[in-house]
């Protein structure tokens, strides 16, 4: 009975894939199924392009201080979004700031979720004392609210972009490990893992070839959720003065002094916040679409 069901499914999949669709058609299908996700992806792509071409598209050098044009309102003298208290062009700083945000976002999300994947699968596969101890250690890390743990790590390591990334990665690892482990536990019980062991495959091979591919869905879901979270956490820490340091353009950092000037020059406070919100919004929409597609429990709802 089981065999026939799966055969029918593969046939159906095959028929669906068979006629090759033009990429425009694929894009159309996707945007009909996941309109918000495609919108999110568009924001993310725009950000990637801006970051990659920052030196071409920025009207000014983001570090250059124009003392004749401090706190100039948007639109004057080709300062499209105005300047900050040092006369630095806000638009250029926003464009270069997307590099910082993307770097922190991708590095933290990928490293954090991959470390979680390794720990989660290993914990489920080996079980026993190793699993027990690892779970207690992860419990300890999970007992801290995200920002508190990040704050404590930054307090230890000091500010700076590398330390901020470590501070953000650390709380991500146990979160991902927990989710991956619970999925991997179910997979360990499936006979093909026993079969692989009976065939004398090494632990590394069973983990990499038989377990890891089957927990890709939760792994990718966690990874995409972390992208937005990492950008937000970096902005918060930089805002507190504990993150990325001047003069590196970073959105959270641009808001640090904003409260001193925003009464007379609101643009100093508005645009960096819009940039943070928009990018996290894009990453979250994209992440949601990924989850809807990958999580069979939620599919077609």
């Amino acid at each position: 009975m089981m065999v026939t069901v799966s055969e029918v499914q593969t046939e159906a999949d095959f028929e669906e894939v068979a006629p090759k669709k033009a990429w425009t058609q694929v894009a159309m299908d996707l945007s009909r199924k996941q309109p918000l996700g495609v919108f999110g992806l568009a924001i993310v792509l725009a950000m990637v392009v801006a970051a990659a071409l920052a030196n071409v598209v920025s009207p000014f050098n983001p570090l250059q201080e124009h003392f004749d044009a401090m706190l100039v309102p948007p639109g004057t003298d080709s300062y499209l979004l105005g300047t900050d208290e040092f006369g630095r062009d806000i638009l250029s700083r926003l464009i270069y700031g997307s590099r910082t945000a993307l770097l922190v976002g991708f590095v933290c999300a990928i490293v954090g979720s991959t470390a979680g994947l390794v720990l989660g699968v290993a914990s489920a596969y080996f079980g026993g004392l190793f699993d027990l101890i690892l779970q207690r250690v992860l419990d300890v890390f999970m007992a801290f609210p995200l920002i508190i743990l990040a704050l404590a790590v930054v307090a230890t390591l000091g500010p700076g972009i590398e330390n901020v990334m470590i501070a953000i990665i650390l709380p991500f690892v146990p979160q991902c490990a927990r989710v991956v482990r619970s999925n991997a536990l179910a997979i360990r019980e499936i006979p093909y893992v026993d079969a692989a062991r009976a065939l004398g495959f090494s632990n590394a091979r069973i983990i990499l070839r038989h377990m890891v591919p089957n927990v890709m869905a939760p792994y990718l879901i966690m990874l995409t959720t972390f992208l937005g979270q990492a950008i937000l956490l970096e902005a918060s820490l930089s805002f507190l003065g504990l993150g990325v340091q001047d003069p590196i353009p970073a959105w959270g950092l641009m808001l640090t002094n904003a409260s001193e000037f925003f009464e007379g020059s609101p643009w100093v406070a508005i645009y960096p916040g819009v940039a943070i919100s928009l990018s996290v919004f894009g990453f979250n929409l994209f992440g949601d679409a990924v989850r809807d597609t990958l999580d069979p429990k939620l599919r077609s709802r």
Partner: protein
Amino acid sequence: MGKYIFKRVLLMIPTLIGAAILVFLLLRMAPGDICAVRYLGSGLAIDESQIELCREQLGLNKPQIVQFFDFIWGYVVFDLGDSMWTGQPVTHEIAIRFELSLQIAIMATLVATIIAIPLGIISAVRQNTITDYVVRGFAIAGIAIPSFWLGLMIILGLLIVTQSWLGEPWMPPIEFKSIWEDPIHNMAQLIWPAVATGYRYSAVATRMTRSAMLEVLREDYVRTARAKGMVEKIVINRHALKNALLPVVTILALEFAFLMGGLVVTEQVFNLNGLGNLMVDGVERQDFAMTQNLVMLVVIIYVFINLLTDLAYAWLDPRIRYS
């Protein structure tokens, strides 16, 4: 049930001890200490013997392991020691700020609940319509907008609106007055941070309500209720919502725990002197006594609320108890 509670409480102990070790080590790994911070700040020529004396007074020259057991022992005898910066008892420093943080946490949770539950229900009931997309967009925006920036925008909005309506800009009061003492003053100060953080937390809860409702609306008993010809409103409020609320309440409870210490950034924006502010100060001054106890306080609240939600779950759903 008794056995389950016992097991869960027992499991908390290694977590708390582990957290204590982690906090203790993290803080001591940082270069320098409060005595160095003090002398650098005072601008006096650095006198090694003075710094040594300061360390001796604060007990920083004791072996680390002794300092750690002093820290743990403090929880056994309920004496958390004195702040290394102000010299006041840590419990006193926390107590004078606790009311403010607790009030914002409660208000923010209320804001979140009021926004989240109706929006989540509407979004689920009208799944895949324009209403649903708008609500989901609103919720995802809530997660994307940093609450400290929303706070800045609220202050900016207040300034502009009051400037044009009243002729002079108005800012929320800076000095904290208890709600029992001066409710209007208190509300005028705390409603804004509560809204800024409440919106953010409502977003998570809205999404939770929506997905929980969607799940429940597909259950057989809901179909039965509809088949009986029951009014849709009653089906949703009585049958579906009751069962969908469990995960929502969990999320709200955990958020509440998080809010108690997680207001770190928002407090800075609104110039509030709460627990988050105390923590940032403690970190900057390397006031170990203050920071370690404050972090532990947040962790203890977090772990306890976690425990309470687990127990509530077990009480409501016997399957959890026995597995």
